[in-house]
């Protein structure tokens, strides 16, 4: 599936909920189902420090696609991490670099991606894009 198709799918899924509480309960569920990052990879260099919560992000290049695994110490942050991994993992570096994240606004979770929230998510997206640049360079040489 393309990034856009996955984003559409997520928008549809979240549109089913009537209020924020159901939305958050779903997000908490998503957080719980996120494939955990291998504990050996939860190292300082994989850690994205937010003032409020921590995020660990690991990426690997497999057959020209980037696979992300990630974790967070806060479950709501982890729910959004799960959404971002679902959108960006197993995509080509180029697709990741050209994708935008405005779908997060559409599903009503914009406040979690505010830089002032300091939960590590904005830095996580930045790191995903930086990883994509690095892998793209690797593929082109």
């Amino acid at each position, binding site marked *: 599936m393309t990034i856009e198709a996955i984003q559409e799918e997520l928008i549809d899924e979240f549109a089913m909920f009537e209020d924020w509480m159901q939305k*958050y*309960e779903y997000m*908490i569920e998503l957080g719980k189902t996120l494939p955990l990052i291998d504990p050996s990879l939860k190292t300082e260099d994989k850690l994205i420090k937010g003032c409020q919560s921590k995020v660990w992000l690991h990426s690997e290049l497999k057959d020209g696609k980037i696979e992300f695994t990630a974790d967070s110490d*806060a479950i*709501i942050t982890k729910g959004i991490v799960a959404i971002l991994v679902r959108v960006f993992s197993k995509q080509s570096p180029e697709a990741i670099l050209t994708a935008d994240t405005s779908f997060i606004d559409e599903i009503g979770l914009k406040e979690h991606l505010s830089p002032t929230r*300091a939960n590590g998510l904005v830095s996580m997206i930045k790191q995903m894009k930086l990883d994509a640049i690095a892998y793209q360079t690797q593929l082109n040489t």
Partner: protein
Amino acid sequence: MALDVQKIRADFPILKRQVNGYPLVYLDNAATSQKPQMVIDAIVNYYSHYNANIHRGVHSLSQEATDAYEAARKKIQQHFGIQHAHEVIFTAGTTHGINLIASGFSSLLNKGDEIIVSALEHHSNIVPWQMLCERTGATLQVIPMNEDGTLAISDYSKILSEKTKLVFVNHISNALGTINPIEIIIQKAHEVGAAVLIDGAQACSHVKPDFAALDVDFYVTSAHKMCGPTGVGVLYGKETWLRKLPPYQGGGEMIKEVSFEKTTYADLPHKFEAGTPNIAGGIAFGAAIDYLNSIGFDAIEAHEKFLLEYATKKLLEIEGLRIYGTGTKKTSVISFNIEGIHPYDIGTIVDKLGIAVRTGHHCAQPIMDFYKIPGTVRASFAFYNTKEEVDRLVAAVSKAKQMLT
């Protein structure tokens, strides 16, 4: 006398707000307090009617503005039991005041001298001293903390010596609400000839310290935690100390005469007040002090004690909830976690229910490291909070727990 809380709440326009569809419950008073109409009016009135630069104009507006600003200084002097008005230095806030002292002591400290801070400090009360130590070769000593969030005062006596030149402790811990025994800390420091600076950022909205009775050398606080505006605060210093310290910043206002060969500095307090100050802020700070005194600190303390005891009892009924900072002397701050739940998650859910609390390490990472936690949820109450608001907090935290486990 019991407070008429509903009458008081009517003074605060923001308390009528809705947040996320619910009436706002503002329990982040330790971060900043809300402002009564009287303080907002003082700012609007200044800019609407007598905005002018102070201390140098001969025209009428300048005189009016100067009078109002200096009247605010006098209010601060009286409020805190300060002997001379020129011992009241207006600052941009507590952090500014601390940095002013840290900078001033650069020329007074030598290698081998010691500075003592407490384990309960805010980052702003740790970093300037580390920087001062780097500049002077002095070393930093720390008064350790106990499990209940109080200071280990017996250890303080052990680290005090003739080498100690400065002791810096907060009056009340922002992260835990612990009231520190500053009377003993000051007395013991003076026995070895050390000066004491107290950070009162968290204290002055809850209690009314008397600086003369405390015999404190320096005391700093911020207006914005006392119902006043942001960007203004006060540094009190004993005159003898303020004369010893060199000026902090150069600029207008702080000079007597300037030539390229030599500049002489203005007398106190202007020596430490370079540049055009926050005039509206200073005047509104005075209005905030008037407002707090019109309610009365005895009534404030009694009401906040009631809120603290009620909220503590109610929150502890939630299974798995632990409160950090359980000393007998504390202000209306409750820092807590629920077993197995990250504080950020709780803060996020209760915000959706219209309740403002703080989550995180509260700029006091050493305390969080002590408890081996990433942070806490902190609910901090002011005199305008109600029993019903405590009930809403408890219900919201219970709801968050149910959703998150």
